[in-house]
């Protein structure tokens, strides 16, 4: 019987279990869709086609995924130090503010290739600063990071409304929005970049920041698993007292981790502000910071997992929008419910299927052994 408790093979742990979880979530979602009188298989087809069926759809899916990669990485790196950063929403919002301030100030004077690194830096600095105060309060004053970061989301929202209504608004305009940046401050869209090499694809909000997100994912992977700092972060995450005993300053690690986490969340502003909207506006974060928590959970805090989970959630956002378009009975709340089910099954109930699988694999293992012995 001891074989039944054998740990699962790696591929089952990182591929099979997530797929089983998603299938369970989709089954429950399908039952609900059936109950409101629509055909669940038809709905699934519309969702998949709407997310991956044609180039514009893929563009939208990957555009959403770009946001989730940034916020997902932000949550993940904090998780590695056993910190739960719920403030991605506010850090992304303020990161966008940093991008907008920089571009509004300098778009008349500097060319794109100078603006881009400066804007990335601005998004990271602003996002990091927004995470710095909760980090300081956690490290040196013991205020719980969950509480402080969530409070900072509200402060960010209030600050942004104040700034947009009183400072950035174009005089005489109805909309609390800044002016549109000059063309040289726009990140190139994917359809433009493909156009340069002669390939025509439909226009979508997907832009260069997707590539930036992939590069950042690689850098974060190197950082967490192949540097001393990454090791220190993981050591603190495993056991604070052991890390302390080993001579690691927990306070410094908490500060460093949260600053990186905030900087990553802040980079969402690159995609939204510099890549898509080209101006500062209200609520451009639209919950991407919170979805990042689910993405990190599902991606097991590993950059590869996070990229895959981001694409899944991007598909849910884009496919879900298509679904409400084509099936009038399905409201956007219904789509949120489907997203919620997937979060529930792959986050909160992630390990529900594990004991059964372990038993199953144990069974196969013992059968194999018997055959060998036989």
């Amino acid at each position: 019987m001891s074989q039944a408790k054998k740990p699962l093979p790696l591929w089952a742990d990182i591929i099979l279990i997530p797929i089983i979880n998603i299938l369970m979530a989709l089954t429950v979602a399908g039952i609900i869709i059936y109950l409101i009188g629509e055909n669940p298989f038809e709905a699934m087809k519309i969702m998949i086609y709407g997310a991956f069926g044609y180039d514009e759809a893929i563009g939208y899916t990957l555009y959403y995924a770009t946001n989730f990669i940034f916020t997902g990485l932000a949550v993940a790196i904090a998780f590695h130090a056993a910190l739960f950063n719920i403030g991605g929403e506010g850090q992304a919002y303020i990161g966008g503010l940093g991008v907008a301030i920089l571009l509004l100030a300098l778009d008349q004077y500097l060319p794109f290739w100078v603006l881009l690194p400066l804007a990335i830096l601005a998004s990271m600095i602003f996002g990091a600063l927004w995470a710095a105060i909760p980090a300081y309060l956690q490290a040196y004053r013991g205020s719980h990071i969950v509480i402080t970061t969530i409070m900072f989301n509200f402060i960010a929202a209030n600050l942004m409304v104040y700034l947009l209504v009183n400072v950035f608004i174009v005089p005489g305009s109805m909309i609390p929005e800044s002016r549109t940046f000059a063309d040289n401050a726009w990140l190139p869209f994917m359809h433009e970049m493909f156009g340069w090499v002669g390939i025509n694809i439909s226009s979508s909000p997907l832009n260069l920041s997707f590539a930036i997100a992939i590069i950042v994912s690689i850098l974060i992977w190197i950082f967490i698993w192949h540097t001393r700092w990454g090791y220190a972060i993981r050591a603190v995450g495993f056991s604070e007292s052991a890390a302390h005993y080993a001579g690691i300053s927990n306070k410094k690690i908490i500060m460093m981790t949260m600053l990186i986490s905030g900087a990553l969340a802040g980079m969402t502003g690159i995609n939204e502000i510099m890549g898509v909207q080209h101006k500062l506006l209200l609520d451009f974060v639209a919950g991407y910071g919170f979805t990042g928590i689910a993405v990190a959970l599902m991606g097991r805090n590993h950059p590869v997992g996070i990229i895959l989970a981001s694409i899944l959630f991007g598909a849910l956002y884009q496919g879900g929008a298509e679904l409400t378009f084509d099936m009038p009975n399905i409201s956007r709340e219904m789509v949120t419910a489907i997203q919620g089910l997937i979060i529930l099954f792959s986050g909160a109930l992630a390990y529900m299927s594990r004991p059964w699988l372990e038993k199953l694999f144990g069974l196969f293992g013992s059968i194999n052994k018997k055959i060998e012995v036989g």
Partner: protein
Amino acid sequence: MKIIKLAVVALSATVLCAGDFKPAVVFDMGGKFDKSFNEGVYSGIEKFKKETGIGYKSFEVTNATQREQAIRKMAKRGGNPVLGIGFAQGPAIDKVAGEFPKTSFAIIDMVVSKPNVQSIIFKEHEGSFLVGMLAVMASKTAKVGFIGGMDIPLIRRFACGYEQGAKYTNSKIEIIQNMTGSTPSAWSDPSRGGELAKGQFDRGVDVIFAAAGGTGIGVYQAAKDAGKLAIGVDSNQNYLHPGTMLTSMVKRVDVAAYDLLKSVQTGTFEAGIRSLGLAEDGVAWALDEHNKALITDAMKKAVDQAKADIISGKIKVHDYMSDNTCKY
């Protein structure tokens, strides 16, 4: 009977020939059941659907990027007219209207200058002026309150009109103003609305105008519990608490949406600005069986006089959004 039926068939046939008429509506983040602005449009187009039997396509956006996506998709699939709800859709309509010059577009609460866009705006400051007068005349403490939803220029326009109406009636009146919040949740936070209302009552206010979407529900309930008066907004909300709802500042988005669809159907659609104020019955104060006991003849007379004066131009109500200040 048969002749009438034939006539109807013939009529609808000509209408169909007059152009592809497939109404499409893009609601904003509040959603079509927000008990207020979006829902007003919804009831207008539902009425149209019931009367004509012509269905429509609709979409509710959940983030900023979807506005443009949804409007473009509607136009691509042959939607005509494509109606955008709320000022936030302005830039998206502006962009997509340029890409589909043969499609008719319309937007409520915002001006978009394109040859195929009709911009429907309301003079909320005029209606707010009138309910400001009513508030002061109904107040016994010479203190009136205002509770706004999200702190944006549009709501400050309500507040500014209200303030002017109040000061017009009694220049010494004290006005206490609160905004519920600075995020979109300020449109749907009745408990916060109730707290703000109680706070204002404690400071001596006895009439409150809530321009706060769903948050207003809490304000009206607090007024009922305290035996004070409240003023509704957007739709006629007098029926909610007869006896403590002084009146409602009605914004006829339903009529605007209905008229728009009708105009496209009959081929009389015109691009440009449609500014709906007191003169066009686009804004009004509501008087019905639920609040007639609260409105004395003197009050009604004064307000009707002011309405006539505003229409004739004798009273000029300053529009907050013309210069983003409330100096008048």
